[in-house]
């Protein structure tokens, strides 16, 4: 992010106000609700009682982080119109939810699930599957959290023109986040998401308005400029780009929908009606977020031509400086916008941390170390280990990697390997635990090796998608060769049949 010379002390004031609002919301979410700290479902799922407004905004603010702006605008700037794919791959996530969320919601409510692992344990009853799943999820969440920590620091120090140094910025916001999360759990996370999501939306819309104004007022003049100077960014995409586009749809669609914190939002919904209404609204949000961010990147091609690599990553900061210089109104809007970016990053980080802690509480501690412990104690263990994990990751974050987008794809490669177990397991009774285990392990290793050896994509197809294909083949082929696991378990069979019997 660029040095935002325009902000400085005003930026600090806005950030302080935002931080205080978050703390107040956290305090009121936790106050008077003794249940929050005494039960896993109370702390991690807000008692499974989130209404439409909180659920929609927590889905929104969790899915769209500050990176969606800070990382995607430069991506649009570098690749041009083929970055229109960012609208489709964020929308397709809802399509993938429709594959499994309706039934998972019913079973999760009936059996009182807290984490995604609860479903896998219920379905496969296999230590191997449970452990590999926990490992992949903790890895994915840890990586995601790390990315948010890096981004918070860059955004804040950029916004305050370096007045607040990178490290101090991260520490302050991490403490704010830990404090409200400690007080209110999922309820605090969801309620702060309402405020964080609204600020972000207002900011993006104002940003695009300012950008179009600066670039001459008409979108046609921008594309004309691109056609004359950088025709490749406007050309019909090559067939490799198109294959990559399809691959992105598969990778992001399948990967993002089974993010542990995303799945937990299905569990936390108050009712089916609330859940489907929230998803129906979410289906439109890519146009308002990644769509507008795409526009920002395209406008940037005209405003700041010729930026490459790391320099292009500064695009949002550079544009914000220019927009802020238009008049005092835009100046303040830009400061709020940058506060919004920080809020969006925090709102994603808090959800990921909460999910991370829940995996520790409910799965690692609650299933393997001390299943007999009280729920209060399990919640405590998760909270405390979550804090240790944050500071461990901070230590890594002090040396931030270059391009944000690279780490974004890396976490999907491994998480997406949970998909066959998670979704195929909902409908196909024959699917059995041994092939699922080996499918996940071999798929994850294949994806990891391809990525680490520099073959992030092969002919445009992502390593994670190739690993997933291998994983699927092992799951399906292996299940035909072994006997079914679900049929021996009457409770499970009842759950899997429930929807059919009703119809």
């Amino acid at each position, binding site marked *: 992010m660029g040095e935002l010379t325009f902000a400085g002390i005003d930026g600090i004031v806005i950030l302080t106000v935002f931080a205080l609002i978050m703390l107040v919301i956290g305090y009121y979410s936790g106050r008077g609700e003794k249940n929050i700290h005494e039960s896993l479902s109370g702390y991690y799922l807000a008692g499974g009682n989130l209404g439409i407004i909180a659920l929609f905004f927590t889905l929104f603010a969790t899915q769209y982080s500050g990176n969606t702006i800070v990382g995607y605008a430069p991506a649009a700037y570098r690749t041009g*119109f*083929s970055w*229109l*794919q960012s*609208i*489709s791959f964020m*929308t*397709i996530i*809802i*399509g993938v939810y*429709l*594959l*499994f969320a*309706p*039934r998972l*919601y*019913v079973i999760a*409510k009936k059996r009182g699930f807290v984490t995604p692992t609860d479903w896998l344990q219920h379905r496969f009853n296999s230590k191997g599957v449970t452990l590999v799943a926990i490992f992949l999820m903790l890895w994915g969440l840890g990586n995601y959290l790390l990315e948010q920590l890096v981004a918070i620091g860059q955004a804040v120090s950029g916004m305050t023109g370096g007045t607040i140094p990178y490290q101090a910025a991260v520490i302050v916001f991490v403490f704010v986040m830990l404090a409200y999360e400690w007080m209110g759990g999922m309820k605090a996370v969801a309620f702060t998401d309402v405020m964080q999501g609204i600020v972000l939306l207002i900011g993006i819309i104002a940003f695009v308005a300012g950008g179009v104004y600066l670039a001459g007022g*008409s*979108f*046609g*003049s*921008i*594309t*004309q400029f691109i*056609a004359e100077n950088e*025709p490749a960014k*406007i*050309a*019909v*995409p090559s*067939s490799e780009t*198109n294959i990559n*586009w*399809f691959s992105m*749809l598969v990778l992001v669609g399948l990967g993002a929908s089974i993010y542990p914190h995303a799945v937990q939002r299905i569990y936390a919904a108050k*009712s*089916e*009606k609330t859940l*489907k*209404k929230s*998803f*129906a*609204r979410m*289906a*439109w949000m*890519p*146009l308002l977020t990644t*769509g507008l961010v795409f526009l920002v990147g395209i406008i940037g091609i005209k405003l700041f031509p010729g930026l490459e690599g790391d320099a292009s990553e500064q695009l949002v900061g550079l544009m914000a400086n220019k927009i802020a210089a238009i008049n005092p109104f835009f100046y303040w809007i830009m400061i709020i916008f940058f506060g919004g970016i920080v809020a969006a990053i925090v709102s994603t980080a808090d959800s990921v941390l909460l999910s991370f802690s829940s995996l520790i509480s409910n799965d690692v501690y609650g299933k393997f170390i001390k299943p007999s412990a009280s729920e209060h104690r399990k919640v405590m263990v998760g909270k405390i280990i979550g804090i240790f994990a944050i500071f461990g990751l901070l230590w890594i974050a002090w040396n931030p990697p270059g391009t944000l987008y690279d780490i974004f794809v890396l976490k999907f490669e491994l998480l997406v390997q949970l998909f066959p177990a998670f979704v195929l397991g909902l*409908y196909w009774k024959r699917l059995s635990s041994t092939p699922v285990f080996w499918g996940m392990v071999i798929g994850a290793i294949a994806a990891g090796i391809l990525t680490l050896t520099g073959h992030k994509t092969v002919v445009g197809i992502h390593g994670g998608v190739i690993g997933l294909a291998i994983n699927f083949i092992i799951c399906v082929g292996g299940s035909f060769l072994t006997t079914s696991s679900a049929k021996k378990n009457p409770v499970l069979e009842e759950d899997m049949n429930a*929807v059919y*019997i*009703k*119809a």
Partner: protein
Amino acid sequence: MNKEVKEPIRKKWIWIGLFIIVLGNVPWYFTDSMVEPYILGVPFWGFFILVFSVILCAYLSWICLSQWKIVEDEEEGNK
């Protein structure tokens, strides 16, 4: 028992429809010359992709609201 249970996974047409929209949403079917004419300042192929993106949003939003109803009546009845 309630006969109005709807679960998206069991309706094939939903997924065939989604597949067709996704096919239209990736620009594999354009030739290199299809940058022009510009429509509202957007290159010809990009405009089509944008239209399909809007259709995708609308389609999924509508499916959520109209084709998904498993325990809703039961839950709302209990209120």
